[in-house]
């Protein structure tokens, strides 16, 4: 069976702010249908990596999305959906206006049909009276507009309640089944056990783990307080062995 054409390839991606190196030689390959957790402690370079791939920061090395170089030109960004770690949507606009604006920028319809009903606040609701979680849901919907092939999600469910998280992960898995890929940055990768296929752990701007979700670096990073214990099957362990 021929190897699938990767959605994302980076080779020796490096980024420094002044003399301070934040990313140092990141080489990754992400195939269609893969959901990859990008994790690491605070300041490990997770958000910077996503911002480089979204075309927001110039960098050294190479990155290609769908075969197109990430070099600042707008075309490649048509293939990418991005949610930054923190965004304040304008309070004067309604939910519908925000979606319509970003859809127009992308040249697509302002609809995300695979999001479950009730995930988004009503279209006529002003952002100013939406809760933090509702605003985050709108930002996530913006990233999903136009079925991008690569989703770059920086702590996407940080403000969401449990129902919202489950609904979003289910949507993300649906997108992956349809061939999209996603990089999800989070400091607590164990939260994505059962959702993500693979974990990449960064430390001091370098990849220290690229593989299964049960690697020692992943386990060491723990999980968000209040989230359920991972099932043994999610960790890839033999259930009998786990019980023993």
């Amino acid at each position, binding site marked *: 069976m021929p190897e699938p054409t990767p959605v994302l390839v980076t080779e020796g991606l490096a980024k420094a702010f002044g003399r301070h190196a934040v990313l140092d030689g990141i080489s990754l390959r992400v195939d269609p249908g893969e959901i990859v957790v990008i994790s690491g402690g605070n300041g490990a370079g997770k958000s910077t990596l996503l911002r480089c791939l979204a*075309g927001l920061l110039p960098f050294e090395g190479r990155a290609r999305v769908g075969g197109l170089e990430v070099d600042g030109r707008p075309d490649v960004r048509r293939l990418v959906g991005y*949610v930054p770690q923190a965004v304040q949507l304008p309070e004067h606009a309604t939910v519908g206006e925000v979606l319509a604006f970003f859809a*127009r920028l992308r040249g697509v319809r302002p609809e995300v049909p695979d999001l479950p009903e009730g995930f988004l606040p009503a279209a006529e609701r002003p952002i100013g009276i939406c809760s933090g979680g509702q605003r985050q849901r709108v930002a996530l919907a913006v990233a999903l507009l136009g079925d991008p092939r690569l989703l770059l999600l920086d702590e996407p469910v940080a403000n969401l309640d449990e129902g919202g998280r489950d609904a979003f992960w289910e949507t993300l898995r649906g997108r992956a089944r349809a061939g999209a890929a996603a990089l999800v940055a989070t400091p607590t990768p164990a939260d994505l056990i059962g959702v993500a296929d693979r974990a990449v752990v960064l430390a001091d701007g370098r990849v220290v783990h690229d593989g299964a979700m049960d690697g020692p670096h992943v386990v060491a990073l723990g999980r968000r307080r209040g989230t359920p214990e991972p099932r043994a099957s999610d960790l890839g362990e033999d259930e009998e062995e786990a019980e023993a």
Partner: protein
Amino acid sequence: MNAALAVAGWELRGAVRSRVVLGAALTFGAICLGVTLLGLDALRGLGLAGVGPAAAGLVNLGVLVPPLLGLLLGAASLAGARERGLLAMVAAQPISRPAIVLGTFLGLAGALWTTVALGFGLASLVLAGVARVQDLAPLGALVGATLAVGSAGLAVGVGISAFARGRGQATALALAVWFVLALGMDLALAGLAPAVRLGPEGLLVAVLLNPLEAGRILALLAASAGGTALGPFGAFLLDRFGAGGAAALLVGGIVVWTALPLVLAGRALARRVV
């Protein structure tokens, strides 16, 4: 271009809904009305007809207030969006950075022009009763010059916003630029002109280096046949370039003041961290 127009529409809607722009429009309208009524009162006291003194007051108002408003609006634009994380979301879409700058400028220019239209609209309601047919062209030139210098101020503000580290720094720089253009250059010129023996050519260069001054001269040229309101400098301009040539030169200067900051802002935004 479609993406730039989308940004323009977004900015215009946001600015119109914002209380700051509404407040500025009402304030500018009230000041225009006040200046017009005071000017007409002075006119009647002298037993003169026409709109001359009222228009002269509006010239000074028009070349000072809209550029200040434009500078402040522009300074808050990109820097504010960057602080809120919104610029990153917009820049991650398939739109070029120069198109973001252009769209931001066009949208805010629409808001600024609405403000100016409201202010001068109120003044024209009062002037309509006393204006003569020959007053229409000077008043039209005044509105045009005001829109032009306001747009130049806005472009400089957007340029500052692209380079500034934050909204606070951008606003402080915008205010500093306005003080230099509105007062500083005049004061420096008044102090230096005798010492350096600045001739009319040197004065023209100084005018072109200041869009507010170029706008003022443009409006006054149109307001007074033969450039009499400008004294020897007006006579020099008309003698050397003719009325059309002088107007084109001044408009050209303002256009450069508008285009150059936008080009620099587009380049800065393409290179810097968003």
